């Protein structure tokens, strides 16, 4: 073995990034390339009566103009939501929906041409809020086949165990409404796509996509080309966070235009257009009812969610289930009912953003627990620790817990922060008001929350029996190793992990491994960078690809060294006999011997998650090979006169299983904390009518370096049996506890509850005013709309799930 795994190494693609050589899609140019732009709807909801492109076509420099009729085939990421068109044909559904496209010799001409396209619309009543979506007198945004009912896209209701009995056993029941505002990925790189069609009928697309495989499928469908003649390559990607996981209109349009013109076509979106493409965090309204015994033990949990989905399905069906799936994987819950609903509105579609559908319910649940703990006079940390799920058990909704390091996570952050004890860190000097008079106006508080996330979805997006991840490893006779995998690196380091694993297994230097990724022609399918699936799935596939190769090499070496193969191991570029280290062979010599003996050296590996879905419809969402856990303590200071909140410090402990490269795991934790703080305090998608209020990097607020608190990270390394070398996920889970920890800290500081995000100064002042007036010291949604949730499907919990003990009557 060599010492790669567990070592803080540079990512293999960092070097290109620091010298400015990494090629992102917009950095690529091809000879004779045309530039395309998309005309977007100025109406939130309207029928298209006519589109006149004549003037645009006549503008010198314009090479092609297309409309919806040129690419009418419907697509969408989920097989059940094929409700998008690359360019709208009959109807536009939000301001920003794509209507027509122009390819021209240069971008400026293409832009000018857009102004010459005349679209006649027949306006329909816009549906902007969730309440409007429930109002059946308003126009339906989609035809019946795409919606469960009118503007209700999806409805689900599931009940596990005996809810009534659970509430009957409770000594204390708390009900409350919460709202988590929608927000967006805001990757620094705007989406870009470059397409090229060769005369022999081969289409190539380079794109900033996290999911080349799904784009590949969507292109085959919408362009009616055999998939075998389409090649999708993910360029270097300037941040994703889930924002580049759908097949996008501009990708299809670029392809169509190159097919029509025979010239390469590039489209790079503007920042405003990226806001329109969105697919970010759903705004979710939640109603939570939880019953506990006097010692805090949960007896029943009833969770109702309503998601504002925007104009299209996207991942929305999965998002809806996700708002209910993971409430059970942290604490033992013996009876659980979940009702979820997603509605269509005339706004950019929502989809998966870091934590996909789970930060919203986690926000509500962890605040709810804090309230219960305070009500019962329990320490919120100790309280939670009593009811944490056990390793190797199942939850009431049939999810399998392999390892759970949450208890240790809580201990680590509590100890470091002094949470709940007297030795709490004193006020951070730099934040202290310089003005004597104002000191008394600054209140300090600490809050704790936990979270959990999956290490990859247990089921693929479209139903099939094939692997979720494939890896090919090739060993060159010069000693170089090439790893081919369809995965996409969006900065998290997934490409590097493959190199680390190969290097570790072969006992060679990481620099002797090349990794070729995300190219549907060259690399075996990996489903893509979403749901934190990459480390676990590609890692396992890589190990599987490497191991038979290792055996061949060992056999050849054993023959040469005249020792049994079992006595040999790979170490520091050599194959060494553990019993007699004089018997050794250079790695490079060994591969030559092996190739002479076996022919070309390559191996393949595949990974498919264990089959664990429960016995009910909808059980596919939430299952995963393993779950990560995180605990967070936030320290805030609140200025009671201005309502301004400063997050002073975040302590975050994450159980991501074994850290294959601690630097990368820390990076994921810090990045998640950053995003969690931003969502808690300022990030928000707001609309005026159907029009986005702030589609720019100035008006959509994200934390600058000056707003970012200090972060102390602790890695709690469980050794998970499902992971490669014991690894679980780290890319999304650490975000989850951050917003509720901040909300709980604000309560600790000033005694008011802010039950919605973002927690802005004016909301704080309003809650303080309520408190002063002797009313409920709270800001948040007061009620939940009356909506037609269906009758729940009753599901028997598995054997080894938490059981409700009957203590009362």
């Amino acid at each position, binding site marked *: 073995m060599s010492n790669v795994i567990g070592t803080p190494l*540079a*990512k293999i*693609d*960092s*070097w*290109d*990034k*620091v*010298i*400015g*050589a*990494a*090629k*992102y899609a*917009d*950095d690529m140019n091809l000879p004779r390339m045309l530039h395309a732009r998309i005309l977007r709807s100025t109406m939130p909801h309207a029928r298209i009566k006519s589109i006149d492109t004549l003037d645009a076509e006549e503008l010198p420099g314009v090479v092609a103009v297309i409309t919806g009729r040129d690419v009418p085939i419907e697509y969408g990421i989920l097989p059940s939501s094929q409700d998008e068109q690359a360019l709208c044909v009959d109807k536009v559904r939000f301001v920003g929906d794509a209507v027509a496209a122009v390819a021209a010799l240069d971008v400026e001409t293409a832009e000018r041409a857009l102004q010459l396209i005349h679209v006649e619309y027949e306006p329909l009543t816009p549906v902007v809020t969730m309440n409007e979506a429930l109002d059946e007198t308003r126009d339906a945004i989609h035809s019946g086949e795409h919606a469960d009912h009118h503007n209700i896209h999806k409805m689900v209701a599931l009940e596990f165990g005996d809810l009534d009995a659970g509430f009957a056993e409770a000594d204390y029941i708390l009900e409350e409404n919460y709202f988590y505002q929608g927000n967006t*990925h*805001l*990757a*620094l*790189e*705007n989406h870009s796509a470059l397409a090229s069609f060769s005369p022999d009928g081969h289409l190539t697309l380079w794109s900033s996509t996290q999911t080349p495989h799904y784009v590949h499928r969507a292109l085959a469908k919408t362009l009616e080309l055999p998939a075998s003649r389409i090649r999708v390559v993910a360029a*270097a*990607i*300037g*941040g*994703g*966070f889930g924002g580049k996981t759908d097949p996008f209109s501009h990708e299809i349009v670029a392809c169509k235009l190159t097919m029509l013109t025979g010239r390469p076509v590039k489209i790079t979106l*503007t*920042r405003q257009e990226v806001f329109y493409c969105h697919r970010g965090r759903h705004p979710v309204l939640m109603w939570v009812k939880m019953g506990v015994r006097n010692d805090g033990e949960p007896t029943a949990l009833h969770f109702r969610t309503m998601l504002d989905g925007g104009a299209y399905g996207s991942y929305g069906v999965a998002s809806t289930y996700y708002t209910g799936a993971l409430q059970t994987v942290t604490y033992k819950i013996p009876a659980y009912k979940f009702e979820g609903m997603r509605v269509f509105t005339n706004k950019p579609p929502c989809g998966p953003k870091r934590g996909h559908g789970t930060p919203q319910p986690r926000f509500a649940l962890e605040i709810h627990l804090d309230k219960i703990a305070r009500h019962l006079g329990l320490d919120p940390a100790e309280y939670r620790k009593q009811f944490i799920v056990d390793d190797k058990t199942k939850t009431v909704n049939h999810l399998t817990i392999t390892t759970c390091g949450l208890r240790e996570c809580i201990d680590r952050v509590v100890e470091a922060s002094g949470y709940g004890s007297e030795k709490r860190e004193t006020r951070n000097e*730099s934040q202290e008001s310089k003005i004597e008079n104002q000191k008394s106006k600054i209140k300090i508080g600490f809050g704790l929350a936990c979270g959990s996330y999956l290490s990859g979805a247990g089921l693929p997006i479209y139903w099939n029996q094939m692997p979720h991840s494939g890896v090919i490893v090739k060993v060159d006779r010069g000693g170089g190793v090439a790893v081919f995998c369809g995965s996409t690196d*969006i*900065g*998290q*380091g997934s490409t590097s992990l493959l190199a680390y694993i190969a290097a570790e297994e072969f006992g060679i230097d990481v620099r002797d491994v090349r990794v070729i990724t995300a190219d549907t022609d060259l690399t075996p399918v990996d489903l893509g960078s979403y749901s934190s699936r990459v480390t676990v799935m590609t890692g396992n596939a890589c190990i599987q690809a490497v191991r038979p190769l290792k055996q061949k090499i060992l056999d050849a070496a054993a023959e040469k060294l005249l020792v049994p193969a079992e006595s040999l191991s790979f170490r520091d570029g050599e194959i060494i006999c553990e019993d007699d280290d004089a018997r050794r062979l250079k790695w490079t010599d060994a591969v030559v011997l092996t190739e002479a003996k076996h022919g070309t050296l390559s191996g393949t590996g595949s990974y498919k998650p264990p089959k664990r879905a429960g016995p009910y419809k909808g059980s596919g969402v939430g299952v995963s090979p393993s779950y990560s856990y995180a605990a967070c303590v936030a320290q805030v200071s609140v200025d009671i006169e201005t309502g301004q909140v400063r997050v002073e410090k975040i302590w975050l402990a994450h159980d991501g299983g074994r850290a294959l490269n601690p*630097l*990368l795991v*820390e*990076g994921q934790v*810090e*990045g*998640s*904390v*950053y*995003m969690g703080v931003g969502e808690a305090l300022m990030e928000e998608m707001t609309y005026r009518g159907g029009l986005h209020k702030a589609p*720019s*990097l*100035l008006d959509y607020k*994200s934390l*600058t*370096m*000056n707003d*970012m608190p*200090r*972060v102390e990270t602790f890695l709690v390394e469980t050794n998970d049996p499902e992971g490669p070398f014991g690894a679980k996920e780290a890319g999304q889970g650490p975000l989850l506890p951050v917003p509720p920890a901040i909300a709980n800290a604000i309560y600790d500081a000033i005694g008011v509850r802010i039950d919605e995000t973002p927690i802005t100064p004016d909301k704080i002042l309003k809650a303080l005013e309520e408190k002063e007036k002797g009313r409920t010291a709270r800001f948040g949604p007061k009620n939940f709309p009356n909506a037609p949730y269906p009758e729940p499907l009753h599901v028997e919990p598995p054997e080894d799930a938490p059981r409700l003990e009957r203590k009362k009557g």
Partner: protein
Amino acid sequence: MKQVLHLRVNGQAHELYVEPHKTLLEVLRDELDLTGTKHGCDLGECGACTVLVDGTPILACLALPIELQGREITTVEGLAHGAELHPLQRAFAELNAAQCGYCTAGMMLSAKALLDRETNPTREKIRDALAGNLCRCTGYEKILEAVEVAGREIKK
């Protein structure tokens, strides 16, 4: 109408023929093929396009090349000395301060201007110097560390 333009970029003199309304960002990327300079907004709102003019960080998306004739422009491609990386580049790579890498060029150039003035800046100073560069990936923590490490390296 296109005009002749003389620009010095990364120590190299260029004679170009461009329209005056093309920003430095467009000229660097489209005319000089220096695509290491990125763009996230084109409006001065993100810092991804930061380059140095006579050692001072400015935004290429809001600068007219016509006004920068005779000045020394440095982009990320000009940070290294031949094959030898600038300490900032090494530190950013080794400490994982570049995740997706899209803010990296701008970050490093802002940091370079600071480290050229002082090699041992406080965290406060680093924050102030980099407050005009947004990053969505790192949470800034590793970037701060990398700048400190590079400063120490330069001092040696």
